[in-house]
């Protein structure tokens, strides 16, 4: 559910990074934040309580153009993947315009990835949504690690819908903006 600010001629879209703990969601956000010019972005905010944590910032990509004369502002959100933050993860999905599932490419994390996808589907269902009803892409992160699962195997295990998927190394940057652009296309395609 994007919201429009007619006064400033902006469309605001909420993008949520989802995935298991330590898969690199925060690293994705931090990389985008660091590489975005100060004029185009708001502050990176970390809200933390004992039971809730949220990290987010907003920015206006200059290379996306406009939609019906309106500039597009993205609000990028993530929550920790740890099990005990499930309430935060559920809440953060409310009103999301697009989802990026960040998978950890290491073999020992395959089960955690699958559990996280299942958790995402469960939490989406609370809002009467499904993975095939919202703009959704998958990122296979940590491709720089010495021992990684081949992409075809990850795709078979984590991306049965065959949505656009991307390899990435969020720590150094490759694939981070490709993933976001991939999702942006889907989100904006719905609006145009």
């Amino acid at each position, binding site marked *: 559910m994007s919201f429009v*600010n007619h*006064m*400033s001629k902006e469309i605001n879209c909420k993008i949520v990074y989802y995935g298991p703990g330590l898969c690199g969601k925060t690293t994705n956000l931090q990389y985008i934040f660091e590489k975005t010019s100060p004029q185009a972005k708001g502050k990176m*905010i970390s809200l933390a309580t004992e039971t809730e944590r949220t990290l987010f910032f907003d920015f206006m990509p200059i290379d996306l153009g406009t939609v019906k004369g309106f500039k597009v502002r993205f609000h990028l959100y993530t929550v920790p993947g740890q099990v005990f933050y499930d309430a935060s993860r559920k809440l953060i999905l*409310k009103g999301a315009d697009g989802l990026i599932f960040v998978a950890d490419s290491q073999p020992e994390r395959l089960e955690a990835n699958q559990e996280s996808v299942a958790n995402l589907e469960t939490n989406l269902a609370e809002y009467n949504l499904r993975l095939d009803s919202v703009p959704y892409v998958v990122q296979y992160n940590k491709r720089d690690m010495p021992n990684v699962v081949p992409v075809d195997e990850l795709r078979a295990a984590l991306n049965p819908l065959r949505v656009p998927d991307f390899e990435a190394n969020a720590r150094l940057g490759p694939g981070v903006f490709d993933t976001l652009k991939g999702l942006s296309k889907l989100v904006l395609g719905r609006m145009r």
Partner: protein
Amino acid sequence: MGLEIDFSEFAAARVREAVRDLMEHAPPALVPAASRLEADAHAVGRDDASAARFQSLLEIGYLVASADGFADEERTALAALLESVLGEAFTHDELDLHFRDLADGVEMLGRRERMRRAADDFDDGLSRSEALGFATLVAVADGVVAAPEARALEELGAFLGLGSDEVTQAVTRVTSELARRLRSGGAA
């Protein structure tokens, strides 16, 4: 802190008139000067700091005033009040639409988060105090600052970096000035 106010002994139209008068002829440092509000309103669309400050001012006013719900007639009354203060910058319909947009923003990002972001646009002591004064005036435009609105003012004060004494002082200055105008029969 006891920031609740009740001017319901006065007719609604008289309260609105006194609020409008106070917005247009406020003593210095109470609320943003009407001339500056109008100038900032005309800056919208230019992507500069004054446009951002104006929009954030509208948003904090909305967020406080809607803390106890925001009926259609309240939104319409607030749009009418601001239209009269802002001159030709915005029509009533544009302001009414803007408050609907703000409601969508709250729905998506949450009230606290919207308030925190809007508060960030006031970066000096005077503008923070005036912003709180403006929010107070908008909240009291229907004659009552109810408990949820009072709590929203406290929360806004915290986001603006004001201490609880400063919040009480800023709110009390506005409501005292408004009370003085109401009891003296209108414009001071």
